[in-house]
């Protein structure tokens, strides 16, 4: 039996239309005009217990809205959702005890108190006795490499420490289903890696089902063998990450800072020039040629700085849609 089952899920928001200027303002005040915007349209998928699934899509694609519906935070406009045998929007206590929703930019910890206060409150709310709560806090804190930070006011913690404490608070009741919305957003590379490692460990140790959205391909590649790709509210792809990677990101982006300005003609042989602005160059180089090409350009060009990264997901999806590769 699937842990998460979604059929024909849709969410439509009514958005006010207002023209700019005084006339637009008066017209809006007298006769409000609205448009229905489909944030999620006819999405269907199933996720089995213990699976870790990546949810990919650009800004406004419908990822967060879908997670909010799966966690019961908002009601779907149409379709059927079942999570751990429950209908999420009923938000019954047995369902809430089995799930958690972590949003990278939002917090549940009390800002002016140490995380430990919020943790003890969560323990009481979820009916975890004091001794067991302390044991779980110790266990999760060790996995997250948190120590004294739990006793410092949240406002005094770094972003990475705060995110780790948020995860601890969200997982204290040991949920079977984790909805994670950009859990590594804004974190430095080390903190991102730590959070990824923790999530992988949590999944292995407790067999939790994880649905993860991220702007960072590295999060998805490290954690999710299967991905869902959503664009403009519609699901375009549901399958293995390996198959998608070949289509989605056959290239990597190499950003160069040169010591002198060079013409495009002297850069073209290394890859596709994505942008050339003064001494800054962005090149797209095929993954299978990356090492060789980087070696060549370092030898041939006056490079002051070099960075290799995945192109932003939004751009890739847009490009692939334009090319008709997906959709």
């Amino acid at each position, binding site marked *: 039996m699937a842990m998460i089952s979604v059929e024909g899920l849709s969410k439509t*928001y009514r958005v006010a239309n207002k023209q700019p200027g005084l006339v637009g303002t008066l017209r809006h005040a007298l006769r409000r005009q609205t448009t229905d915007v489909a944030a999620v349209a006819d999405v269907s998928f199933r996720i089995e217990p213990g699976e870790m699934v990546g949810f990919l899509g650009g800004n406004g694609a419908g990822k967060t809205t879908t997670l*909010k519906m799966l*966690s*019961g*935070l*908002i*009601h779907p406009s149409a379709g059927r959702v079942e999570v751990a045998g429950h209908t999420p*929007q009923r*938000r019954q*206590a047995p369902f*809430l*005890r089995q*799930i*958690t*929703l972590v*949003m990278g930019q*939002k*917090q*549940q910890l*009390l800002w*002016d*108190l140490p995380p430990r*206060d*919020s943790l*003890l*409150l*969560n*323990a*009481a*709310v*979820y*009916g975890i006795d004091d001794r067991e709560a302390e044991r779980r806090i110790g266990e999760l804190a060790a996995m997250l490499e948190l120590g004294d930070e739990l006793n410092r006011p949240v406002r005094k913690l770094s972003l990475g420490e705060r995110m780790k404490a948020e995860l601890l608070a969200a997982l204290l009741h040991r949920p079977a289903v984790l909805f994670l919305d950009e859990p590594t957003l804004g974190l430095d590379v080390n903190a991102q890696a730590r959070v990824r490692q923790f999530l992988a460990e949590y999944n292995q140790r407790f067999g939790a089902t994880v649905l993860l959205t991220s702007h960072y391909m590295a999060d998805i590649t490290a954690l999710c063998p299967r991905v869902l790709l959503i664009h403009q509210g519609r699901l375009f792809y549901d399958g293995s990450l390996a198959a998608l990677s070949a289509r989605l990101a056959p290239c990597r982006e190499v950003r160069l800072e040169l010591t002198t300005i060079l013409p495009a003609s002297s850069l073209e042989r290394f890859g596709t020039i994505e942008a050339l602005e003064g001494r800054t160059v962005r090149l797209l180089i095929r993954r299978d040629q990356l090492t060789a090409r980087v070696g060549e350009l370092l030898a041939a060009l006056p490079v002051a700085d070099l960075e290799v990264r995945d192109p932003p997901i939004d751009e890739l999806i847009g490009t692939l849609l334009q090319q008709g590769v997906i959709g």
Partner: protein
Amino acid sequence: MRRGLRIARVLLSTQYALMLEYRAEIALWSLSGVVPLLMLGLWSQSEAGQALGLGATGLSRYFLAAFVVRQFTVVWVIHAFEEDALQGRLSPLLLQPLQPLWRYVAAHLAEQLTRLPFLAAIVAVVMLVHPQAAWWPSPGALLLTALFTWLGFAVNFLLQTSITMLCFWSERASALDRLLFFPYLALSGLLAPLEAFPPGVRSLALATPFAYQVAIPARLLAGEPVAIGPALAVLGAWLALLLPLCLILWRAGVRRYGAMGA
């Protein structure tokens, strides 16, 4: 039951710790409720106390008692809830197996507890300046005052919470709370004891929740007679009306919740 008591204990202690962080702000809030003390200063110079049958001492005690009980019936849930809804802080609360409104109840109770030392200091100063206002209420009067103050707070909390639920429909529902301010000012007994009102207005005031937020508990604390039975009946009726109304609005509201900012 045991779980409920544990949640209440932890929730209150956590909220108290949080309120202590804002103690300077809370001290200023305590001071901002000085309208009854201003009234005490104004009315103590007049013969009004005799005319109202309270005497100068009775009138001074009434206003001091009004200042004290008002500190425990003030409700600000609409402002906290609106901000939480707009900032997305409501979302994690909705995903826990505890009705989120209990957190706001606990926050109010913790804030009242935090006010106590400031309140005691202000009362001591007023008693020094107006020795005729100094008295020590009987244990019975204290118990009745505590009961009616708490009921007055509960009714006020439910009344404001009903309006607060409009946050699910409007981003600025707190503006509607101002509609209650003038009836509250006029009918609560904050500016004058109910004896000063014409009989018709006094009956109207006693039928509203406002008189039970200031006038009735203040009279009890000041040792003035109060018709307990009818007062309890009115409070019970308001509770019976507002509690289901709140729950209905809550259920309708969360269906509309769009998790703004979350």
